[in-house]
Structures are given as C-alpha cells and as structure tokens.
C-alpha cells in the first residue's frame, strides 16, 4: 500500500520540481520578485514534508537546507545572487535524482550530496553579519507581499440587449449567457418588458434583454470577447461597478429583490452605492482562498493510458456509428435514421470532448527547453535570449511525445551552431546577445511552430557543394534557394564530420524531418546568411481522426484529407489530352498532375475521372482519381509495422460497411512523385 503512495509522491514530487524549475527561471530574470520566491519556498517545503513522510530521508534533509536559504531570502536576510541560482539549479537536479532513486547508498554519491549540502549551507552562514542592515527593508517588503497576493477580482454590470433579429442568424443568446457565467460568479436578471402580447408575438424575434452582474478575475476584454460575434446585433454595455465581490453582499440581494419585482431598474449607480465598509480587504482575501480551493478540485489526475483508451473507444464508436447510419439508410427505416442521427450528434460531441481531454499544452515541454538554452549558453559562454510565444497552445499528447526530441534537437542546434559568440556578433554589427524565438500558433486545423534565431544562418553554396560531394544532387542543376535548403533534410546529408564546417544549423535535420513526418507534420527551413534561420513545423492538431474525401481509383477506395484539398474539378477528355509532361492546362492555369492510377499500378477504366487539386507548400498539384464518393469523417489507423515503408499511404480507415480504405498522405505523395528534380 505504502508503495502506491510513494509512487504518487514521486509523481507529485516531479511536478513540484517542475514548478520549481519554472519559478527559478523566472527568478533569474527578476531576483526580487517576492511572489516567485514564495512559490519556490512552498514547492521546497512540500518536497521536504512529503520526503520525510515517505522515507526519502536524504531528499528531506537536503531540501531542508535549501529551504532555509530561501526562507532567508524570503525574509530579506539574504539577496538572490547568481551563485545561489546556479547552485539551486544543481540542487534541483539532485532532488530529481533523489526522487528517482530514493536514498543514496553509493559512497561517491553520498559525498557529492554532502558537498552540495555544504555549499548550500554556506549561503546561509556567510551572510550572518550583514543581515542587520536589511532588517529595515524587510518590513516594507512584507507589505508589498500582502498587497500583491490580493486577487484583483472585480464586479461588472453587463447590459445585454439583443436586437430582435438575432435569432435569425442562428445565435442562441442563452449560450452567451452560459459563457459569461463560466467566467466567474454571475447573477442574471432578465427583462421582459418589451415582450408583446402572445397574439402579436413573432416567435422568430427576440424581445428579451438581460442584466448580468458578474464577479470575475478576468479582464474586461475577456468579457467582451464572449460577445464578439454578436457585436453588431445587440446593444452591449459593460460597466465596472465594484472592486471585489458584490454578489454575496446583503444589500445586493435587497436590490435584486426589488428589481425582480419590477420596482426598480438595475443600474450601475445603484450597485456602486454598495460597499463593504471597513473589512473589505479581509473578505476579499477570504474570497481568494475560496477561489484557490475551487481551483484545486477543478482538475484531476488521470493515467494517460486511460485517456488513450477513451480516445480509442470513441474512435471505435465513430466507426460503428457510421455502420449504423449506413444500415438505416439502406433499409430506409425513418425511426432508425432518427436514432442514428441523434447518436451521430452525441458521438460528435463525445469525440470533441475526448480529444480535448487528450490535448496538453506545450508549456511543460517549453520549460525543459528554457532550461536547456540557459545551461547550454552558459556552457558555451554565449548570451542568448529565449523568447516563447504561444506556449499555451494545446496539442495531442501523442504528438507532443513525438515532438519533444526533434524540438530539443533543433533548439540545441540554434544555440550550438546558430548563434555566434558575442565577439563575433559585435564584429558583424549585431546585438551581442543573440535571440532564439519559439513561436506557436494555430492556423486552420494545424498548429504552426516556428523556431527563429538571429544567428549566422546557412550558406546555400556550402550546402550545395556538400550535397554534390555526397552525391545527393548532380552538378550543374539549377536549384532554387529553397530547394537547396531542403537538401539538409535528405538522409545522409549530415554526418559528424560535416558539423564543424557547415555553417549554421541543419545538423541531423533528416532525423527531425522523419520524426515530424511520422506525426503527419511538415518541416521547412528558411535561412539568410548572417541574418538567421527559421525552421517552421506544420503539425496536425490530432492524429487519429480526420475529415476526408473518399475517392475511388480503379477498384480501390482511398481517403484524401480534406485539409489539403483546394478544389475538385471534373476531368474532361479534351483536358486529359492536354496533359503534357505531367502538367495540365485548365483554363488559364497550368499545374502538375499526378495520376494515382500510375502510382498504385492500376489500369485506367472508362469511368469519368476527376482532378483533386491539393496544395503542397506554396504550389498546387492535381491528383487524378476516378470517382468522388463523398466526404467522410474517418478514424485513421496505422497499417502496422510491416507496411511502414509505405510512402504514400499514411494509414487506413474502416468504412461503414466494414471495408477498408487507404488514407493518402498527399504531402508525401507529392514529395515522392511531384518533385522529380531532387528525387531523381
């Protein structure tokens, strides 16, 4: 039994360590931030307490010394120095190790631990003399602390009066109210004075308006965002009326009672008249405690295998649902169709929900990267700013798992090979402090991640020469800059001996490319010599379910992901004849086409054919197929390891009738068959 708790403690301990690391990095930027020091202290305290309880004695005593240091820092007896931060980072690594192995038994490890402990103790004893001087500042800081912990919860009065035609656009105002209520504590008062008599009432019009009193910690913008899509279809007025929570005030209840009876109109002035009197501070900090408590139970820890299973089951359900729908449709049973449609709606919601659950924010990984950049740049004596934008982007757990290594590799490349030494940067007229920007954002159904550095960039000529030497391209080919840069993705391009003389990054990029390809992502690279390099990753949001277009090629059925499709064009016989050297002319447009019959070694039938136009990077390609059957939502299943060398097919999916369709990976298809120039 105790083992179970121990395991739990280790898991939570690692979370604490994680939190500690994050806080340390923040502290390094601003060593005076009281709130962060508090956070560090708390994390250490938890580790110490838990460690002693579950038999991690070394961990507990070690953390105790560390905690003492931060206790001093907290009380202003000690200032945070570079030294303390460095030692703390080492200590955090030690804590992590202790969490994994329990108590140390090895003699040399014991010594190491003792040394580290000694150094940490040193911070506390050496500062005994000058602590008197700081006492003055001490009390003042404490005040700051109490002020900063006060949560900025505010109360707003929202007057929301939809125009009468709002329902015709399909907007349901009640959903908006739900959204508002999700922001915090809200009281909603409806106003029906404009509602006409029943015989005059047009059910398609909206006559009701609402007054909402909302207590929230969110900023005004968040509230406005709720109404962003109906801005032009309603009168909206949001006023801040109160600093703190008003809803539980007895006077507020009185006013509401009056308003409900129709005796008074709820106005901002009326509410502004309320005040808590003297003990305003006390109650709002109490409120904060309540908020914290609520926050704690608002998330639960679930084993990731359980979530995988849930997603799998939902995927299965989607498949079965398709079968049910097919059955109902072929048997033309109206009752059955109704049922199937209801289930379809439910399934869709369930699916969306299950996928949302399996999404996790990139944030956790980013911590590691930040630490990496910090440690590595210290080691190499480089100065680097690591800037993160969009760390709150969420991605499928499985994608993140596959993403960490490639990202780590690319960031290491940036720091190691990309950014120059400070002296060199000054010579080039650049800021001696280099910057690496990590940027993530959504674009359609994709997530884009960019890693931008302002380092030395890559020299296309060097790359081309290398590639020619390696026999990857023939000499004398006229390649565009982009095509040259793409060469770093070809396998066998970079080996150890190239690292030193290859300018900038691109080391091991073939591995990155392959890994990203495994999760149906795309990598591209752009670089200007001496200006820097940008690596862009385009990733799908989720791996297992896609919206696809079902087409037939000869006797087989194939799914093409809708996200790649631009348009579908029927292929006339005349146009077919105009295909010359793999390029078709349609109207004014010329674009290359790939006949899937050729790719799949099938014979063209007499059937009317279609061109599916897909985009690939910035170009358009046409895929020739036979019939276009329809749009389907499909669960992509892997084909298993035996068929893994399959380039064009990314998986298979089971159709409603139990047959299997192959899912085409358009990107790889075009890469393999469209770019004849590089792939000879």
């Amino acid at each position: 039994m105790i083992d179970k708790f121990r395991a739990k403690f280790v898991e939570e301990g690692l979370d604490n360590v994680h939190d500690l690391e994050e806080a340390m990095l923040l502290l390094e930027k601003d060593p005076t931030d009281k709130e962060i020091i508090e956070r560090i202290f708390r994390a250490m305290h938890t580790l110490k307490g838990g460690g002693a309880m579950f038999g991690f004695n070394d961990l507990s005593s070690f953390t105790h010394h560390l905690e003492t240091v931060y206790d001093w820092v907290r009380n202003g007896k000690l200032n945070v120095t570079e030294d303390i931060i460095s030692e703390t980072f080492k200590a955090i690594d030690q804590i992590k190790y202790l969490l994994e192995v329990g108590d140390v038994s090895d003699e040399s490890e014991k010594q190491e631990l003792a040394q580290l402990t000694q150094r940490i103790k040193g911070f506390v004893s050496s500062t005994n003399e000058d602590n008197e001087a700081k006492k003055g500042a001490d009390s003042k800081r404490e005040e700051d602390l109490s002020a900063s912990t006060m949560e900025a919860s505010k109360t707003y009065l929202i007057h929301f009066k939809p125009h009468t035609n709002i329902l015709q656009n399909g907007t349901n105002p009640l959903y908006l109210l739900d959204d508002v209520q999700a922001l915090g504590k809200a009281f909603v008062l409806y106003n029906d004075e404009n509602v006409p008599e029943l015989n005059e009432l047009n059910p398609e019009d909206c006559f009701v308006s609402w007054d909402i009193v909302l207590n929230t910690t969110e900023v005004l913008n968040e509230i406005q965002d709720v109404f962003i899509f109906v801005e032009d279809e309603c009168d909206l007025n949001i006023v801040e009326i109160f600093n703190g929570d008003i809803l539980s005030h007895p006077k507020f209840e009185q006013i509401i009672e009056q308003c409900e009876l129709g005796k008074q109109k709820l106005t901002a002035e009326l509410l502004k008249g309320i005040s808590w009197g003297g003990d305003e501070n006390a109650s709002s900090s109490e409120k904060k405690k309540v908020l914290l408590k609520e926050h704690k139970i608002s998330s639960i820890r679930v084993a990731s295998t359980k979530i995988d299973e849930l997603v799998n089951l939902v995927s299965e359900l989607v498949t079965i649902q398709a079968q049910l729908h097919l059955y109902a449709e072929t048997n033309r049973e109206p009752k059955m169709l109704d049922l199937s449609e209801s289930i379809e709606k439910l399934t869709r919601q369930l699916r969306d929900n299950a996928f949302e659950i399996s999404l996790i924010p990139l944030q956790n990984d980013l911590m590691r990267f930040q630490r990496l950049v910090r440690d590595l740049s210290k080691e190499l004596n480089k100065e680097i700013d690591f800037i993160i934008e969009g760390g709150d982007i969420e991605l499928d757990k499985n994608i993140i798992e596959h993403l960490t290594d490639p990202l780590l590799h690319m960031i290491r490349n940036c720091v190691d090979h990309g950014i120059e030494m400070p002296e060199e940067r000054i010579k080039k007229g650049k800021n001696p402090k280099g910057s690496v920007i990590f940027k993530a954002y959504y674009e359609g159904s994709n997530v884009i991640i960019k890693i931008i550095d302002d380092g030395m960039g890559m020299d296309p000529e060097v790359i081309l020469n290398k590639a020619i030497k390696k026999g990857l391209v023939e000499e004398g080919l006229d390649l565009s800059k982009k095509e040259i840069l793409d060469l770093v993705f070809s396998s066998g391009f970079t080996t150890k001996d190239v690292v030193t003389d290859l300018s900038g990054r691109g080391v091991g990029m073939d591995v990155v490319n392959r890994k990203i390809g495994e999760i149906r992502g795309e990598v591209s690279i752009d670089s200007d010599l001496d200006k820097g390099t940008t690596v862009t990753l385009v990733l799908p949001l989720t791996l297992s379910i896609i919206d696809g277009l079902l087409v037939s090629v000869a006797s087989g059925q194939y799914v093409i992901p809708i996200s790649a499709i631009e348009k579908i064009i029927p292929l006339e016989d005349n146009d077919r004849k105009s295909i010359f050297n793999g390029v078709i002319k349609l109207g004014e447009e010329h674009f290359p086409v790939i006949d899937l019959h050729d790719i799949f070694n099938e014979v063209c039938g007499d059937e009317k054919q279609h061109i599916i136009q897909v985009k690939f990077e910035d170009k358009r390609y046409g895929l020739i197929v036979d019939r276009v059957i329809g749009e389907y939502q499909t669960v992509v299943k892997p084909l298993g390891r035996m068929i893994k060398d399959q380039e064009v097919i990314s998986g298979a999916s089971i159709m409603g009738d139990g047959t299997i369709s192959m899912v085409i990976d358009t990107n790889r298809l075009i890469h393999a068959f469209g770019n004849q120039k590089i792939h000879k």
Partner: protein
Amino acid sequence: MEGDFKTLISFGLQGQTFAFDSLMVRNILPYEGQLTRVPNARNFILGVINLHGNIFPVTDMRKIMGIDQQEITVDTSIIIVSPEDKIESQFGIVVDLVKEVFEVETERIEPPVFQRKMGLIESFQGAVTEKGELIHLIDLLHLVSQIESKK
C-alpha cells in the same frame, strides 16, 4: 510430471507440415478474399484485413517461403498471430490448411531437418514427429524480425 510441454499449431503448405507456438495465435479465419490491397506493398503482403475494428496486415506464407502458389481452396486460412502480445504487432498469415493444435514435450523436439533457408526464413527452430508425420517448427519472432528488416 517430467519435462516441459509446448503447445503448437500445425498447418500445411504444399504437402509439408509446419508449426509454430500456438500461444501466439489469436484467431483463425477462412480466406474469403476479404482483403484490401495495399498499393506498392512488398509482394508477400497480400493486403490488410478488418477484424473487429482493427486493421491487420496479412502476409502470404507461401510467398514468404518462396513456395509455388497453391490455388485457393476452402481450406485456405488466415492465422492471426500476435508475436509480441501487442495489438499493434498482430498480423495475418495465409496458409494452405490449418491442421491441429497439439502438445509436445520439449525434449521430443529435435534439431531442424531443413538446413537450407527458405525465402525469408533463415533457419528453422526444430522438427518434431507427431502421429508419424514430420513437422517443421518455425520461430515466429525470427520471422517478424526478418520481415521488418527486409525493406
């Protein structure tokens, strides 16, 4: 009880009898042409099959071993095996005829009779005589690694 027992499943291929560990077998299906072809796959992969919502690749044992194609009869079967006890690694093997599941004492297993390799099968695990019939033992794990290493 003396010695260990091994449970084997035997199947026929071109008049010969082969066997492998029956604990790895998950399912036996009649071959009814329910396969979906995978374009550009290697020649011994016949296609994929939908079994209870999972998709498994199906290989042709005759092509793996480089035996002449036999006609497909009512006896032709697909054995679904799971060599690593993971659903992702399951796959089907098409054989001419599935014979029986039998137990054999491990000490009765003799060194392989075949010395030459057959197609992808580099070597056999052993041989055993059961009911007067010589049965060649195939190591499935070895076969899987052969299939996967061969690109």
